[in-house]
C-alpha cells in the first residue's frame, strides 16, 4: 500500500477518533494556563526547609506539601476532620485559596484518555495515538514529495484552499503532533501495564525512637540543602506516631528521613522508565510551562482542521479520478498503453492516443504503469509517464523501475513519452530513468524518448506525426486537454501600445474576478489563487484550446493583469485585444511553480524582452520588503513598446526596484538588445551572482538563448554558468 493510501485511510477512519482526542486535549490545555494564573511559582533560591517553616506557621495540621510542575505550591492537611488542599504563596506561606486539580469536568480528561470506555477505551486511545504517529510519518513523506524535498519545504503551497490548509498547517504542526503521539504512547504503555515504571518495594523504614523531641522540618539538613524547584512532594510525619518518617520525593527519586535524627534512612533513585515517563507527561500535558500548554492546545485543535480539510481533499480526488473509455482487454490488445500520472492529466493524453490507434483498427489496452507487462498478442507498448517533484515517479508507480529491472526484456518495442515542466531541474526525470531502465534491459523502442513540456498539445501532435511515419499508418493525435473549469474574468481597464516595427498592437489588460464563497474556496472551484509568474489560460469563444499568458499581478494585488500582443491570425489575442471594459472572458489559472520567485534577501536579476516583462513587473510590484531587484528590459522603441514604463519609474522611486537597464533595438543609441546590456554590465553581474543572485528570464525563445549565452560568457571567469545556476534552482525561464 502506498504512503498516500495509508495516510488517506488512517485519516478517514482512526482520524475521527483523533479529532475527539485532539479537541479534548485542547480543552485540557486550559488547566496549566489556569494553574499558572492561580498561583505564583516559588523563587529560585528558596529551600524546602524555609518553605516547610512558612507553611507550618500558616497552615496547622500539614500532612503533605506538593510542588506542582507549574511551580505552584499545594498544601494538604486537615481542618478538624475535613481534608483540605490549598494553594500557598511560597514567598510567605500565605494561604491563597482552595486548590482544585482541574477547572474542567472530569469527563473531559476521561474522554481524552479512555473515550469513557474504561480499559477498552484506553486501548482504543492508545491505538489512535499510534495511528496519529503513522499519520504524521506518512504526512512527512507526502509533504516532502509534494514540496520537492527538504530544501523546498518552506516554499509556496499550491492547490485548493483545503489542500493549502492541510499542507500549510501540516508543515507547522507536524513535529508537535508527532511528539504528542509519541508521548501519548509512552504514557499508555505504563497505564496499560506494558511497561512497569518501578517494581521495587518501598523500604520498610521507621524513625528510631530516642526520647528526643522530633526535629522541625526547617532543621532537617536534607531539606536545608534542597531547593523548592527540585521538590515534588514532601510528606510530614504524623504527630501521634514517633516511628513515622518524613517522605521526600524529587525528580531524582524518593527518600525517607528520620524525624528525630534528621538522617536519610533510605533513598531510591527514580528508575529510567520513571524519568522517561515523567518527561513524557510534562511534554504531553504542558503542565510545567503554560506557554507550551497553549501551543499544545492549538495543535490539538488543528486535528479537527486536518480531518475536515482531509475529507474535502479526498472527495475532490474521487471526483477527479481518471476514467479511460474504450480500453480493450489486456490479452486481446495488440497495443498497450501504460500511464504514470500524479494529477491525472496524463491519462487524458493516453485517451487521445488510444482513440487514435483504435480508429486505425488496433485493439488498445490502457492501464496504470504499475501493471506493466506484455502478452503474446502485444505488438507495441507506449508508456506515458509524468514526473513528480524532483524527478520522482508518481506515487502509484513508485516501484516500477525495480520491477522492470527484475523482468527480462521482450522483443516488443516499448516507447516512452515523458510529461513535465522544463523549469524543473529534473525535467521528465522519471521518464528519463524509465527509458534508461528499459534500454538497459534490452527492450527496443519505436521512437526515442519524447519529453512534452507543460502538457503541450502541439508537441504531442508533432510526436504523433513521427509515430504515424514509423507505424506507416495515418494517425492524428488531436489532443484536446480536459480544461479545468473556467471563471469569467471582467475587463476593468486596458492600456494600449501601438507596437513597434511590425506594428503589432499590444495592450496591458487588467481584469477583475468574481468573488466566491467559502465552500467554493474549500473545494478549489472558482478562480484558483495565483501569483505573478503563474499562467492564466484564456479560452476564446468557439475554441477548446486555451492560450496561456504570464501573469503580471498576484491574487493579493486584487486584479489580474496580462500583457497581450496581437499575433498574426491569433484567435485568442484578437479576441482579447477586442475586449472593452466590462466585457468578460473565460479563464483558469495554471500554476508555474518553477518560475515563481522564492522568498529571498539575495539580489534578484530580472531579464525580460517585450511582453516578457509582464511577470517580472508582477514580481517588482510585490517587492514590499524592498529587497534588491534589478531589471533588464529589452524593447524596440521607447515611444511604442516600453511596457510598464511609468510603473517601472514609480517602483524605482518607491525602492521596490533598485536599478533598471532599458534598451531599445530599433532606435539609434538605444543600447541594442538585453544581451548587449548584460555584457556591458559584466562586472556588476558577476558581483550579484557571487552574492547568490536569483535570475528570472522571460521572453521569446531566441531572446532566452541569447541571454543564456551572454550570461555564460559573463560568468565564465567565475567558473559559473547558467547550467550551474539552474542546477541550484537559481535560474528559471518563461519562454513563449
Amino acid at each position: 500500500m502506498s504512503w498516500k493510501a495509508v495516510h488517506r485511510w488512517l485519516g478517514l477512519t482512526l482520524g475521527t477518533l483523533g479529532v475527539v482526542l485532539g479537541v479534548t486535549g485542547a480543552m485540557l490545555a486550559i488547566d496549566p494556563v489556569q494553574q499558572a494564573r492561580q498561583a505564583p511559582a516559588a523563587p529560585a533560591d528558596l529551600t524546602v526547609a524555609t518553605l516547610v517553616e512558612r507553611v507550618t506557621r500558616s497552615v496547622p495540621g500539614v500532612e503533605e506539601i506538593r510542588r506542582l510542575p507549574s511551580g505552584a505550591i499545594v498544601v494538604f492537611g486537615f481542618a478538624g476532620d475535613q481534608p483540605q488542599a490549598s494553594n500557598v504563596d511560597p514567598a510567605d506561606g500565605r494561604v491563597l485559596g482552595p486548590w482544585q486539580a482541574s477547572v474542567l469536568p472530569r469527563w473531559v480528561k476521561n474522554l481524552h484518555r479512555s473515550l469513557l470506555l474504561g480499559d477498552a477505551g484506553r486501548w482504543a486511545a492508545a491505538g489512535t495515538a499510534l495511528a496519529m504517529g503513522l499519520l504524521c510519518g506518512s504526512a512527512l513523506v507526502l509533504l516532502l514529495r509534494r514540496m520537492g524535498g527538504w530544501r523546498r519545504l518552506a516554499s509556496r503551497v499550491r492547490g485548493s484552499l483545503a489542500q493549502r490548509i492541510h499542507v500549510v498547517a501540516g508543515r507547522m504542526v507536524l513535529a508537535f503532533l508527532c511528539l504528542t503521539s509519541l508521548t501519548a504512547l509512552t504514557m499508555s504503555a505504563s497505564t496499560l501495564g506494558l511497561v512497569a515504571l518501578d517494581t521495587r518495594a518501598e523500604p520498610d523504614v521507621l524513625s528510631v525512637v530516642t526520647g528526643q523531641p522530633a526535629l522541625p522540618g526547617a532543621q532537617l539538613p536534607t531539606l536545608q540543602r534542597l531547593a523548592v524547584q527540585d521538590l515534588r512532594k514532601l510528606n510530614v510525619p504524623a504527630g501521634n506516631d514517633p516511628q513515622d518518617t518524613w517522605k521526600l520525593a524529587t525528580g531524582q527519586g524518593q527518600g525517607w528521613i528520620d524525624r528525630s535524627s534528621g538522617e536519610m534512612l533510605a533513598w531510591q533513585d527514580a528508575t529510567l522508565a520513571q524519568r522517561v515517563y515523567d518527561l513524557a507527561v510534562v511534554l504531553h500535558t504542558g503542565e510545567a510551562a503554560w506557554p507550551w500548554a497553549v501551543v499544545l492546545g492549538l495543535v490539538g485543535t488543528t486535528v479537527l482542521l486536518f480531518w475536515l480539510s482531509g475529507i474535502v481533499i479526498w472527495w475532490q480526488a474521487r471526483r477527479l479520478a481518471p476514467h479511460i473509455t474504450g480500453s480493450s482487454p489486456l490479452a486481446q490488445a495488440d497495443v498497450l498503453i501504460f500511464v504514470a500520472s500524479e494529477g491525472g492529466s496524463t491519462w487524458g493524453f493516453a485517451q487521445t492516443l488510444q482513440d487514435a490507434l483504435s480508429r486505425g483498427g488496433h485493439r488498445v489496452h490502457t492501464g496504470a504503469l504499475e501493471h506493466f507487462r506484455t502478452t503474446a498478442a502485444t505488438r507495441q507498448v507506449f508508456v506515458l509517464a509524468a514526473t513528480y517533484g524532483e524527478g520522482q515517479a508518481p506515487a502509484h508507480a513508485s516501484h516500477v523501475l525495480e520491477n522492470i529491472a527484475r523482468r527480462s526484456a521482450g522483443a516488443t518495442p516499448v516507447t516512452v513519452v515523458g510529461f513535465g515542466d522544463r523549469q524543473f531541474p529534473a525535467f521528465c526525470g522519471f521518464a528519463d530513468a524509465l527509458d534508461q531502465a528499459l534500454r538497459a534491459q534490452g527492450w527496443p523502442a519505436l521512437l526515442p524518448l519524447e519529453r512534452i513540456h507543460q502538457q503541450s498539445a502541439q508537441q504531442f501532435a508533432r510526436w504523433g506525426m513521427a509515430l504515424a511515419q514509423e507505424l506507416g499508418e495515418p494517425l492524428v493525435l488531436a489532443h484536446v486537454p480536459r480544461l479545468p473549469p473556467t471563471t469569467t474574468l471582467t475587463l476593468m481597464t486596458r492600456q494600449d501600445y501601438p507596437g513597434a516595427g511590425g506594428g503589432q498592437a499590444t495592450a496591458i489588460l487588467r481584469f477583475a474576478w468574481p468573488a466566491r464563497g467559502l465552500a467554493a474556496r474549500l473545494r478549489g472551484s472558482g478562480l484558483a489563487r495565483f501569483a505573478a509568474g503563474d499562467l492564466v489560460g484564456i479560452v476564446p469563444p468557439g475554441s477548446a484550446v486555451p492560450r496561456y499568458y504570464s501573469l503580471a499581478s498576484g491574487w493579493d494585488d486584487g486584479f489580474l493583469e496580462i500583457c497581450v500582443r496581437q499575433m498574426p491570425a491569433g484567435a485568442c489575442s484578437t479576441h482579447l485585444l477586442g475586449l472593452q471594459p466590462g466585457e468578460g472572458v473565460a479563464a483558469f489559472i495554471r500554476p508555474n511553480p518553477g518560475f515563481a520567485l522564492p522568498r529571498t534577501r539575495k539580489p534578484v536579476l530580472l531579464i525580460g524582452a517585450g511582453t516578457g516583462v509582464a511577470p517580472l513587473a508582477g514580481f517588482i510590484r510585490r517587492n514590499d520588503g524592498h529587497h534588491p531587484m534589478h531589471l533588464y528590459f529589452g524593447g524596440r522603441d521607447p515611444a511604442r513598446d516600453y511596457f510598464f514604463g511609468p510603473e517601472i519609474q514609480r517602483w524605482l522611486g518607491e525602492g521596490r526596484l533598485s536599478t533598471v537597464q532599458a534598451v531599445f533595438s530599433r532606435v539609434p543609441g538605444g543600447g541594442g538588445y538585453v544581451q548587449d546590456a548584460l555584457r556591458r554590465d559584466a562586472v556588476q553581474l558577476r558581483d550579484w551572482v557571487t552574492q547568490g543572485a536569483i535570475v528570472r528570464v522571460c521572453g521569446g525563445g531566441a531572446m532566452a538563448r541569447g541571454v543564456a549565452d551572454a550570461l555564460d560568457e559573463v560568468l565564465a571567469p567565475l567558473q559559473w554558468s547558467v547550467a550551474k545556476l539552474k542546477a541550484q534552482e537559481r535560474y528559471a525561464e518563461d519562454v513563449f
Partner: protein
Amino acid sequence: MSKPLLSLLATACALAQPALAHSRPVTLTAQLKSYGGDGAYLAAYLTDAKGGYVRTLWVAGGKAKYHRHLSDWSRLSAGDAKRLDGVTGASVGAGKTLKVTADLAEALIDAGYEIRIDAAAEDMRDSPSEVRIPLTKANAGKPQAGKQYIQTATFQLP
C-alpha cells in the same frame, strides 16, 4: 524477633488455620464520600497485633502503576507475591459502595488483628490507613468513619 519473620509466621498461621479450625465469611462494606474525583483505589488488608501484614482482603483498582499510591499496603505487603490473587476488582466511584466478602479464621477474631483500608484517587492525596477497624466481635456492624474518602466502613460477622 525480626519483623519480617514475625509477619511470615503470622501469615503461615493465618493460612494454616482454616484447615485446622472453623472459618467464617466476613463481609466488609465501605461507603465512599462524594469527594469529587475519579474512582478511588482501595486496599483492604489484615494486620496483626504488632502492625504486621497478614493478608490482603481486597484491592479495588486494577492498574499496577497506581498501586504504590496505596502506600501502607504496598509497603507492608511487598513480600507477599500472591497478594493480588483472586482479590481484585474495579476502582470504586465517588459516592459508591464497595462490598466484599473474605473468609477469616475464627481464631483471628478478638486476637488483636485489625482490618485496614488504604485509599487513593487521581490528583488527590494518598490516604494510607484511611480506616483501621480492630477485628473484634464488639466492632462487628459498627460503622467507622474514614479520614478522607470513606464515609463509613463496616464489617459483618455472620
